[in-house]
């Protein structure tokens, strides 16, 4: 006796399982695991007999079905007869089948939609070269960007002004090396001494920048040979003496300050 068996090209193990469940008119929520497992296994065997390549994924589901089947066989009773409320071993399977079925249906809907859309035709783009002109520049302006830039500018400007205030003050002091020299000479005159310590040139309220400018002025005077400085010990008192004559004004090379001068003064020492 022979009968016909449909052999589908199944999309995967779930596809086959859904097919078997539907063919057996079983409720997905109450799958007869034993029956469906047998059918599934039979199917795989037949596929193998017909030399249809059975992917490993089909075997994985077969194993899962057998596991569920065996779990179903274990009586869900304790020794004292009390029923154990265990989760139905089929639950996960049912959920997976339902999810697969959902997308299988969606795929069918897409297929219908695809068919429908294949009956819709487009026309190609016309040759638009006759209309094409040279690119037009289009100015893009955004209010937010405008406002933001302006704000940024205002902030920047404020910071700039703040900094310029300080900058100008430092500059003023820098420029006054000459006037500081005059001032130092004045101190010598007022105190009517030939020798003064460096400290004596400083006012009691002198800040760091005043000390620096005074020192630079002293160096400058030394360079101009209008002053001699002596320091007997490291960090000791610097004794300055004014040279009355021979202080040749040499404003041309005034910029050469710093190390060379210091070295010179050490030599003199």
């Amino acid at each position: 006796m022979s009968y016909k068996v449909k052999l589908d090209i199944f999309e995967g193990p779930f596809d086959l399982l859904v097919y078997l469940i539907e063919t057996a008119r079983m409720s997905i929520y109450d799958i007869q695991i034993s029956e469906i497992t047998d059918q599934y296994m039979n199917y795989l065997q037949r596929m193998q007999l017909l030399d249809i390549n059975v992917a490993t994924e089909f075997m994985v589901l077969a194993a899962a079905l057998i596991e569920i089947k065996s779990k179903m066989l274990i009586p869900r009773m304790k020794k004292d007869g009390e029923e154990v409320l265990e989760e139905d071993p089929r639950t996960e399977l049912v959920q997976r089948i339902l999810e697969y079925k959902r997308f299988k249906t969606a795929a069918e809907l897409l297929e219908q939609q695809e068919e429908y859309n294949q009956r819709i035709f487009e026309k190609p783009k016309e040759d638009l070269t006759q209309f094409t002109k040279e690119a037009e520049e289009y100015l893009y302006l955004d209010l937010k960007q405008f406002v933001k830039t302006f704000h940024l500018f205002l902030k920047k400007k404020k910071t700039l002004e703040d900094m310029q205030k300080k900058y100008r003050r430092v500059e003023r002091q820098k420029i006054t090396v000459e006037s500081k020299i005059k001032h130092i000479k004045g101190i010598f005159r007022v105190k009517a001494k030939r020798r003064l310590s460096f400290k004596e040139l400083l006012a009691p309220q002198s800040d760091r920048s005043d000390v620096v400018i005074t020192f630079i002025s002293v160096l400058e005077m030394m360079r101009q040979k209008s002053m001699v400085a002596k320091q007997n010990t490291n960090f000791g008192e610097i004794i300055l003496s004014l040279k009355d004559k021979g202080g040749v004004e040499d404003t041309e090379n005034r910029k050469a300050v710093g190390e060379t001068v210091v070295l010179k003064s050490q030599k003199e020492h």
Partner: protein
Amino acid sequence: MSSKKAIKSAFESMLFVWGEPLDVKIAAEVFNINWKDAYDYFKELQMEYEQEGRGIQIREIDKTFQFCTNPENSEYIERLCTPVKEKKLSQSALEVLAIVAYKQPVTKGEIDSIRGIKSDRVIEGLVKKELITEVGRSTGIGRPILYGTTPVFLKKFGFKDLDDLPEIEDIEGIVNENSEDDSVKPQQITIDFIKS
């Protein structure tokens, strides 16, 4: 300022020469009108063509509009000429596409797990057809690629946007009904099986 009627007429001309889907934004810029107005004009035109049962229809895809033929006339067009038809997607491609469309963004792992079978090749094919594309990386282990659908997908299936996808939530109801109809799969092969 052009009248509404003049703008709509110009939109028709523009759709016609453009052929391809025309971005509402571009059309709006031509008239220097705001996007919403331009969109509304296109929708009005679309409705006019539809209500009059014209042989030309306007379809909306992802904020673009395009002239196309009325599907009811496909038979006559095919009698007139043989339009180039795209090849239909395979069952497995449709399955993967459905999963990506409804669950996006989705990883290959998720797709495989729903289908119970590896989908690498199918995904590759869909990416090549520009129906799906990489849309990012998952934060999960290995940072797997996330897939989503493309505007090509919307166009091919005639969806305005992703909200236009048919609902599939009540599928469990469909599942419960025992399907009487076994003829769903036209490619089924029938083989004589001899019972041992």
